[in-house]
């Protein structure tokens, strides 16, 4: 599950050591925008030390490295790939299949060098330009490591030659495009972060919109955002109960050789069963491959 992936500034040891405790599904140790140029080396050293300790419980642990257009990205990978606990790399400016291939190649080299299973490190690709959004599907398909694609925020807005509005209309199409590309490629779609950390109601509306679009979850920048988003992205008791009834009815129909069955007056067909299974997966009651 990737309902919430919490950004932790890579130069803040207090957050790095405690960030996994707040209950997000994943953490993102940030070497990029949260870290000033003068602190890149310090953040790299600190993050690798924490990763080597490996004390993060069961959350998905990722690192946002600096973009492949910078001088830092190879050093970043060299520092974190051999560490005890790293599930994935969040790659900024992942706007073309070629960038993904370059990073994939470097990851393969490092996995080989450090005796890590090939393909172990996953890629989370942030699309930060109009070109990237347009080629979202190709990016998602460029490597088997790609496990999720994400719309960018400020950089994408700048590239679109627009500006941020409270309603977020300027990025609405890009977000829809990401969901469609992700579903087509069979990877996750993770939505933008919501920047106003004390605006719980705004966050609630934004998260509901993300869910309605079809996203799997959101990036977040403050632990207090976790319960709000989890509440929205976790199916309610009522939804779970209905999903269980749909699946039971479908299995019963199959056992009895019936073609169709109805639940609450609605025909249960294959997409309805698929949707019900997805709800149970989201509720943590079934595994994704079941």
């Amino acid at each position, binding site marked *: 599950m990737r309902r919430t992936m919490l950004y932790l500034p890579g130069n803040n040891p207090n957050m790095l*050591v*405690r960030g996994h*405790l*707040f*209950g997000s599904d994943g953490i993102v140790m940030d070497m990029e925008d949260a870290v000033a140029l003068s602190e890149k080396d310090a953040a790299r050293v600190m993050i690798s030390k924490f990763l080597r300790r490996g004390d993060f419980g069961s959350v998905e642990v990722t690192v946002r490295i600096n973009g492949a257009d910078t001088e830092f990205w190879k050093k970043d990978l060299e520092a974190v790939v051999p560490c005890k606990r790293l599930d994935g790399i969040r790659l900024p400016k992942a706007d073309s299949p070629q960038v993904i291939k370059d990073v994939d190649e470097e990851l393969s080299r490092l996995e080989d060098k450090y005796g890590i299973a090939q393909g172990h490190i996953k890629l989370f690709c942030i699309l930060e330009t109009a070109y990237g959004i347009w080629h979202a599907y190709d990016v998602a398909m460029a490597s088997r490591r790609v496990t999720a694609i994400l719309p960018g925020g400020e950089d994408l807005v700048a590239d679109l030659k627009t500006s941020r509005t409270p309603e977020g209309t300027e990025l609405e199409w890009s977000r829809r495009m990401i969901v469609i590309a992700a579903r087509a490629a069979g990877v996750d779609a993770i939505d933008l972060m919501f920047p106003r950390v004390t605006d719980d109601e705004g966050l609630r509306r934004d998260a509901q919109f993300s869910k309605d679009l079809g996203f799997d979850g959101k990036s977040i920048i403050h*632990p*207090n955002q976790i319960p709000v988003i989890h509440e929205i992205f976790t199916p309610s008791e009522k939804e779970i109960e209905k999903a269980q009834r749909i699946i039971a009815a479908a299995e019963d129909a199959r056992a009895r050789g019936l073609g169709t069955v109805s639940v609450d007056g609605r025909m249960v067909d294959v997409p309805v069963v698929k949707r019900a299974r997805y709800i149970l997966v989201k509720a943590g009651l079934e595994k994704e491959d079941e």
Partner: protein
Amino acid sequence: MPLNALGRDIPAFIEGYGKVKPYRGAFALQPSGNVVGPRLRVTNADRTDKVLPDLKAAIAASGLKSGMTISFHHHLRNGDYVVNQVIDACAEMGIRDLTLFPTALFGVHKHLIDHIQSGVVARIWGSVNGPIGQIVSAGGLGEPAVLRSHGGRPRAIMCGDVHIDVAFMAAPSCDRYGNMNGVQGPSACGSLGYAFTDCQYADCVVAVTDNLVPYPNAPISINQTCADFVVAVPSIGDPAGIVSGTTKVTRDPLRLLIARYASRLIEASPYFQTGISFQTGAGGIALAVTAFMKDAMLRKGIKGSFGLGGITSYFVDLLREGLVDKLLDVQSFDLGAVRSIAADPRHVEISADMYANPWNRGAAVNMLDVVILGATEVDRDFNVNVNTEADGALLHGIGGHQDTAASAKLTIIAQPLLRGRIPCVTDTVYSVTTPGECVDAVVTEYGITVNPRRADLVEACRGIRDVPVISMDELADKARRMSGPMDPVETTDRIVGVIEWRDGTVIDVVRQLKKK
């Protein structure tokens, strides 16, 4: 050196304190003998006005001499003007070698440092926060400070361990015959609970007020039968330091996480049922626990019986919404609490004696189901230190820590595992305030740690979803790994602080810090 029941090295006799009764166990010592009494005094009908022109006149009339003991209460907290004014007057009158017996001293009393150095103040038997604590830790006080809990203090008065010669009573409202309350006037502080016993047992009581009203003042908290003299001064306190405004629940995610874990533990405990009583105090984690408890009570249709101790607006909200029936208030923490105690008969002012004295016929803490407390350190045996910081400096009072921990059915210490790089869970606490036998659980951001003595709670925790349960040894090991080695505190042999258990035995001592 003899060891007490916790294995602390404490001499049998401490210079400036006297013979030591070593701590023997939380409930081991039973009292004998009678309660002491104050001096008999008479005010006949020919004297219907107790007002004197100023503090010096009152000090002279009280018979206060060098070497005597004077007491104060701390309801005005960091806004208090009375302690400094009285000691200034004593100094100007040539009175020296005084024993101060305050319920607590705060940063505002930094002014006393000059009087400590000049010998006007020779001893402090009360909590020493902030700068006075620093002075004591550095050896600047001639004799050791004696720290007692909110319940241990009235016990010490009533059994005769401490004799008060003159109690100076900061009274936010008072009439000319000495009827006082804390709920009216520009310096209203709410409950006057800490001062009740002082006024009943001191040989002489001087009421100091900035709101002199016609007789009879009403409501009456402390009445005319206790007051010898009344002095009107321009101001007894700064409202900005007396109470905070509206106390808000923290948005600090770490504290919220700890509070959420603590409230989940309470919810899972056998005490979370209609009639539950609790004390949560002020402070970020405590307020958040109160808020989470409220949610849980509403969700499960549970109604509580009473809230105890220092009362905040959050408790007042619980009262107004019918989630508790009564508030028993020894200390009003904010303006909401002050307004409530003035207006709502279900919000009851209680004395520190009724709150927490272990040696009366029934303290309110005995009726307490759940208490949330803080700490500067907890050790592997669940012993708690609230008095000294990791550097050994004596900076905090005991408050109701010992009393509520000893009496509540569920005592939870809620605190982060580390503050900065300083571990709050250690192998051995630097000084013991509350013994581990009185602590049921420690809650940190790493989850719930239950004292193995409480097998029932260990079992109850198995039913809590999504909250980690971690053993004390794992927690302490984690803290040590994260903080790295700490330099030991370097002290001299000289004892500068004596920490009494609530029954008057010595649970620990604090030694003078070596100069760096």
